[in-house]
């Protein structure tokens, strides 16, 4: 059957062959990412039913795990690769018409590299391999943030670069410690020997890796780069960044904590950090009137919610976290893409300049509203199911700490509701209401809106199949020993 390595190989290969195609005809460049993502999506969807029962393990170069690098394609991995492929495909279709000026060739190369990095992090079973792909992901996103070459674009790119590199540096030292202590880089192998060393040393490495990954995953103190990066990057990039890049960061932290270290006792602190991230993110988004900064802050907030969900450590918690990741990536991508064309039409990022967009760009504003309602968690949309699961997980876990944390989370969702509803009002109910000419976004942009909106509503109303995938995904995280035996058989 098809080797999952192709998921990484194809985008990598296309990324490097893109300049050659560029020479043949400039126009061909923008179709390549679409082809790559189309292939990835079909392959991962094809792999999903196989992977659910028993994961596929691929040995690169033929050597057995403790020595060679292996790819562990479990339900979690395939779930993430489906999301990456889907969002990547839609953003690349969107980018076909959105990215016109500047060196488009370079944009598409970096875009493909970013996606390969993401795929790699998700599928790899080896911790150093995870770091390498993580590095590819970060570097390509630094470059893409500064793509517009305007003053604050470059400034935020540099800030992102500095913080990102400090983060990756910390991760590298952590991995070096691990290699020093256990002599192996394979996750399963480390997990097997983890409690043979006294816990203090273990903890130092865990702290380093979490802080390092935390920068990319935008957890509370380390997410200072995100608002600047997102507001100055082109909308398609900020959609990818908050749609995929941050989720990969959280996946990496979850993988490290759950499978490798199995350190469930740190989770109550992580839950606290998650809630603080949520509160700070939402509260700082309330007073914004620049649409992209507001969406960026709301991304940090949502990440806090996901981290809190994972930190509930029960199977309900992880299931809720994964569902929230799905919901957040879909709706946040939809919001950023829609905002992109609104900014393009009005020329300014101020929310007050979007008055009467309901009439000028009806479909785009409809998409924006669906994304906003889903993030707030109103019933017919996906957000409701994920909020439902998170509250269920928190309350069934019980305990005073979690009930008051979930209460704080709900307060944060109220604040989020407040500012999203204000934006919806600006779109529909403000501005002159005599009939304005309809300057709708181009068809190429409308396709992703339509697909995302349909997905959000479908998952919201009938979350059955998604839950099926998530159940097996959570079992992979929860049953650490099964993972180890699976790999080291």
């Amino acid at each position, binding site marked *: 059957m098809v080797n999952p390595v192709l998921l990484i190989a194809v985008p990598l290969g296309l990324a490097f062959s893109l300049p050659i195609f560029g020479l043949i005809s400039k126009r061909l460049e923008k179709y390549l990412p679409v082809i790559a993502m189309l292939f990835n999506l079909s392959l991962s969807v094809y792999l999903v039913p196989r992977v659910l029962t028993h994961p596929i393990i691929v040995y690169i170069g033929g050597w057995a795990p403790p020595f060679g690098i292996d790819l562990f394609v479990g339900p979690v991995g395939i779930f993430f690769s489906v999301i990456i492929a889907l969002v990547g495909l839609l953003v690349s279709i969107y980018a076909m018409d959105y990215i016109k000026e500047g060196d488009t060739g370079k944009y598409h190369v970096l875009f493909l590299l970013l996606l390969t990095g993401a795929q790699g992090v998700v599928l790899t079973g080896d911790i150093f391999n995870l770091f390498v792909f993580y590095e590819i992901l970060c570097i390509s996103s630094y470059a893409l943030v500064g793509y517009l070459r305007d003053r604050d674009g470059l400034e935020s790119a*540099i*800030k992102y670069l*500095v*913080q990102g590199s*400090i983060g990756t540096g*910390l991760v590298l030292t952590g991995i070096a410690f691990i290699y020093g202590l256990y002599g192996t880089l394979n996750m399963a192998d480390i997990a097997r020997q983890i409690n043979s060393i006294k*816990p*203090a040393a273990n*903890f*130092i490495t865990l*702290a*380093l890796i979490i*802080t390092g990954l*935390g*920068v990319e995953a935008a*957890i*509370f*103190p*380390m997410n*200072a*780069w995100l*608002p*600047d990066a997102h507001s100055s990057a082109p909308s398609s990039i900020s959609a990818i960044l908050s749609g995929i890049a941050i989720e990969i960061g959280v996946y990496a932290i979850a993988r490290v904590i759950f499978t490798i270290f199995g*350190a469930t*006792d740190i989770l109550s*602190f992580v839950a606290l950090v998650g809630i603080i991230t949520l*509160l*700070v993110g939402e*509260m*700082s988004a*309330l*007073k914004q009137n620049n649409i992209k900064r507001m969406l960026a*802050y709301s991304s940090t907030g949502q990440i806090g919610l996901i981290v809190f969900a994972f930190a509930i450590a029960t199977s309900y918690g992880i299931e809720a976290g994964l569902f929230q990741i799905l919901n957040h990536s879909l709706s946040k991508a939809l919001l950023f893409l829609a905002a992109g064309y609104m900014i393009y039409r009005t020329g300014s990022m101020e929310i007050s300049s979007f008055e009467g967009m309901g009439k000028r760009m009806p479909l785009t504003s409809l998409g924006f509203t669906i994304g906003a309602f889903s993030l*707030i968690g109103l*019933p*017919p949309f996906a957000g*409701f*199911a994920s909020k439902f699961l998170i*509250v269920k997980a928190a*309350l*069934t876990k*019980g305990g005073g700490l979690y009930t008051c944390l*979930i*209460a704080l989370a*709900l*307060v944060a*969702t*109220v*604040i989020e*509701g*407040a500012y999203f*509803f*204000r934006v919806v*009002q600006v779109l*529909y*109910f*403000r501005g002159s*209401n005599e009939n304005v000419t309809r300057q709708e976004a181009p068809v190429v942009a409308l396709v992703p809106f339509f697909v995302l909106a349909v997905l959000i509503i479908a998952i919201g109303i009938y*979350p059955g199949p998604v*839950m099926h995938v998530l159940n097996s995904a959570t079992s992979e995280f929860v049953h650490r020993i099964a993972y180890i035996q699976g790999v080291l058989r």
Partner: protein
Amino acid sequence: MSLEMLLVIAFGGAFLTYLLGKLSPVLRDILAVLLTLVILAIVALFYGRTGESSFMNFLGFNLSLRINTLSWLFAIAVATLGSLSTIFSLSYMKGKERLDFYYLMMLIVNASMLGIVFSGDLISFYVFWEIMSWGTFLLISYNRGPALAAGLKYIVMSIVGSTAYLLGMFSLYASYSTFNIADIASRISTASPGYLLSVLVLFSITFGIKNALVPLHTWLPDAHSEAPSPFSAVLSGILIKMGTYGFVISMYVLVGIKALSHLGHGILSFHFMLAILAAVTILVPTFIALMQDDAKRVLAWSSIAQVGYIILGIAIGTSLGFAGGMFHFLNHASFKALLFMAIGAVEYRTGTRDLNSLGGIIKKMPFTFMMTLIGALGLIGFPLTNGFVSKWLIYKTLILGKDPFLAFVALFGTWGTILYAYKILHNIFMGQLPEEYKGVEEAPFSMKFPMVILSIIIILFGILPGIPLKVINVIGVSLGFKSLAVNIWGIASDTGALNTINIFSAILVSWIVVWLIFKAAPTSLRVEQDNNYAAGSYVPTGRYLYTANFYAPVYRIIKPYVIDVVDIFYMALAGAVRTLCDWTRRMYTGELGSYVMYIMLFLAVLITMRLGFNIW
């Protein structure tokens, strides 16, 4: 015809009207009215059916729809008001823009209310509750300008309410691991009073906000006066009553009477505190309503007061009180919707609803005057209208239940109601007709028809209260109250019976006697409005209208006591939250040094937590 079919028709029909609207507006209007009438017919056919059927599996829990007489009563009220307000909005909204969106939202809100009433478990209740909330938000902010602030205030408060509901729902799930109302009700008797109290408090926050009990009422006056009139008729007629439905479900179905009665003892018991809250809700808004100058604001404040009566009736917990509360819910739906429609008709014709500048409209719109009169009489609780019977029940149980102070507050609230009800009647319809309203003509038919039906309901239930009381008695018995001796003309009981037919016949006979005397005397000469006593001088037309600032002396007395303190507090709270948010945003200073310092700080905290306090 099962419940799922009804809901599918309701929601599907709404989207169908929206699509149809794109083709031809006339077709859309017809379909909207037809849809609501079909729903009304179906609900009417459901009378007497009870049963529960699960219709969908959501995240592992199967959602079920349930119907019994309680939900049927609420459903019939929702359906009737829905259809009447749609008919009313046919002509009221003619010529306004974005009507497809308006009809879509009206039908969605109507359908979601049906969903709430028929939902058998807490999740579907919550789902329809949220759909109703954001549907109402979009409708309130329909006509722009100040309506946006009102809509935002409404949605923020209702989200706070639904989060409280979410917490309550899951705490129930945590201890009974099921969401089905019937299962929870059967298992809850074993729970400890403290736990029951916490669940009830959470639920009463949610339903209190929707029901506009005093501390949580500030969204209602803005929302009602800014929403388009047909919708504010639905909003105050039936949408508030969803809160009442919630109270009944949480107090009497979930917790049950036995458990409720020994929740705390004597004065501190839950339902007595709720009764006190309801009493305050009756008194304070009534006197604020007295001081308003905008007709719809007066009605909005009066809605809060009247809902206080309903909650007072339900909270007392005796069979009479429950019957009184439920009957008052029906009455309030009928006369408040009628009053909003009548004010809407006047606004439609004269373009303004400011009480100080209107006057003498009776000469141009006599029919609307009759409707407002009947509605106002119902609001006051005039002996021949249905409002009287329900208030009589509430007073009787209060007096015999040995807490006359609540009775005093309720009765005194009625007198406040008389004052502001008459203020509306007098300032709009009586007095001199100013110049600019000479060209006003009567309301169109599609406005008259719903008003006539509502006034018939008011008078019919007023004279023959037995019809609704029989249904309410069945509900009372099903909830565990003892049955009342209900017959067609009222309540027959040892400590004082009510016989509305005697009252009606007494008044009718004396009316005929007086009318004969009146006819016997020489007929009088019909004169125009300018042939008026003005101390010998001729009446200067247009400047002889004196209905401004109608109850000035009372304002001076009660003004210091009746400032809406709660609203000021909420606004200050919102301001504080905004400044707090601004301060948190300042954390992102913008220069790189501090960002890097944050990362290192996090690492340091992580390690010191581990080594220093050895938490793990």
